[in-house]
Structures are given as structure tokens and as C-alpha cells.
């Protein structure tokens, strides 16, 4: 049997000059039993049989397997994290708390001092009527005497009411 035509087709196949019909002829030829193929052409059997199986269904995990084979594994580089970097979120939170606390205190402080000032009398504006402490003492004594008499009057008017004043101050 003359296999010259087949040899030519094979040669043209490798030079990419064969038509689809000619490739089909090659596939059909190499699909026969191995012993029917001449010795010098047997080396091409796996190739053309594989081409003939090209329409075979791919398995479901084909893509994954290919990806596994082709993709390089992700390289995770080791990185040293310092104590400063590790504590950074904590420091940020502390800074925010500090800012809020400072603003709160700044707002609250004048309000408190205003309240305290309302309780405190501006004594620096006081001008003494007497320069002599003895005269001032006599006047204070008289004032306290009058106050005491007032209390006594209240007590006399209503002994129960004076007790409630006493207990209220208490």
C-alpha cells in the first residue's frame, strides 16, 4: 500500500496547509488499528487520536484544575508590626475621647463658674461706713440684736413655725 499521500498530508499538516477535509482523512487514517498503520507513521497516532477526541466534553472541574496548574500561588509576605502601629486604633479612640472631654469641660467650666459667681458676692465693691472697728462692732451688735428680736417675735407668734425655719436651715 502506498502511504505517500498520507505522508504528504502529514507533512502539509505540520506546515498548516491542510484543509478540514484533509485533516479528517488523517484522523480517519490514524483511527484504524495500530498494526494497520505503517511503522514510520505510528508516532502520529496519539496526536491524531487526540485531535479526534477534541469534541469530548470537559469535566466540570476542568477550569479549576487548569487554574491550579497555571496560577501562581499567592505570596504572603511576613510584615513586622510595631507596638505603635498595634496601639494606633486605641490611641485614636483615646484622642477622640480626649477631644470630646476637653470640649465638654471647656463648655461646662464657664457655666459652673457663672453659677459659683452667682453665689459669691462682690465684696471688693464694699466701702466701709466706719473706719473705727469699735463703731462698726456696735452697729453689728445692734443689727444682730434686732435680728434676734425678730426671731423672738416669730417664735412668739408661732412657735411651730420657728421650729420649721430652724429645721429648714438645719
Amino acid at each position: 500500500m502506498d502511504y505517500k499521500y498520507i505522508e504528504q498530508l502529514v507533512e502539509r499538516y505540520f506546515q498548516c496547509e491542510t484543509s478540514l477535509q484533509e485533516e479528517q482523512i488523517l484522523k480517519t487514517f490514524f483511527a484504524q488499528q495500530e498494526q494497520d498503520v505503517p511503522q514510520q507513521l505510528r508516532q502520529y497516532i496519539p496526536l491524531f487520536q487526540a485531535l479526534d477526541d477534541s469534541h469530548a466534553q470537559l469535566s466540570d472541574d476542568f477550569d479549576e484544575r487548569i487554574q491550579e496548574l497555571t496560577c501562581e500561588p499567592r505570596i504572603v509576605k511576613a510584615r513586622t508590626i510595631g507596638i505603635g502601629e498595634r496601639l494606633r486604633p486605641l490611641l485614636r479612640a483615646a484622642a477622640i475621647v480626649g477631644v470630646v472631654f476637653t470640649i465638654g469641660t471647656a463648655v461646662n467650666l464657664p457655666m459652673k463658674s457663672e453659677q459659683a459667681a452667682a453665689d459669691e458676692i462682690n465684696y471688693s465693691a464694699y466701702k466701709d461706713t466706719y473706719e473705727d472697728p469699735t463703731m462698726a462692732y456696735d452697729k453689728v451688735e445692734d443689727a444682730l440684736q434686732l435680728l434676734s428680736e425678730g426671731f423672738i417675735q416669730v417664735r412668739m407668734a408661732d412657735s411651730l413655725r420657728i421650729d420649721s425655719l430652724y429645721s429648714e436651715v438645719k
Partner: protein
Amino acid sequence: MRRLALLFIAATLSLTAAAQRSFDFAEKFLSRCKGDSTVKCVTVSPKMLEQMLKQHEGDRNESLIQAIGKLKSVRIVTAHEDYYQRAEELLLKNSRRFKADKDYRTEHAHGAFFTRKNKEGNTVELIMLHEDCKSQLLTIINLTGDIDEEFLCFLYNNKTFKN
């Protein structure tokens, strides 16, 4: 950032300026009676009270000295009896600051007590309005200081201070 800092400083200064010290009732009352020469006020400042306490004289009542030691200031305002109502109205108008306390009425006189407490609840100001119907005179006694139980006890229990 600079603007923000300036704004913050301005706000703080304005709030501090607003936080001025207040005056006692006598000062408020006198500001309402400006121009009337019949309204008179005797002021004994904290400084004078200190000087009074330093002077040790044998004939002085010790308990009175102790009571004076609790005071920061004493003011005695005298005016015509017509001012009684004005003073009372002013106190009642400032009812958040001055609380009306007991009052009394006799044949010849009547009066009322008002107190002011600090935020801790301690009495820091005591005001007595007293009208003498005979002399037709109003007397306002305005004390500031530590008007505590001991001080009031002293006033209750002393019929006369003079030795």
C-alpha cells in the same frame, strides 16, 4: 485652624466676662433708691469684720464674737417705711434667688425674713425687713456668710448681747 482657635478664645472670653460676681440684696435695693437721701446704708465689709475680731476687748460677748466670725458682711439699710413694700416686692421678684421665710407682726412692728442658699444648699445670705410703725422707719439687715445652725441658735437664744 487659626480662625477656629480665635473663635474658641473669643467664646471663652465672652463666657468668662458674663460670669461676673453678683451683689447682695442691699446693693440691689440701693440701686433702686438712687437719688433718695433718706435711704441710708451702713456697710461692714469682710475686712472690717476681720479687724473687729482681732480687737480683743474684755467686755465683749464671746458668743457674739463667734457669731460675727461666721459673717462675711453686714449691711444695715434704713429708709422711710414706704420702702418696705418696694423691698418686699424686689425680694419676691427675685424669688429664685431669695426665698421667703417667716414673718412676724406685733402691735408696733412687723417684719419678714428671706434667705439665699448656695448650690450646696447652705444659707449664705439672710435678710430681715423690719418696719417700726412708731418711728415709721424701715430697717433692712442684710447678712452674708455662713448662716448655719450654730449662728441661728445664737440668735434664738440671746435675748440681749450686751454684757
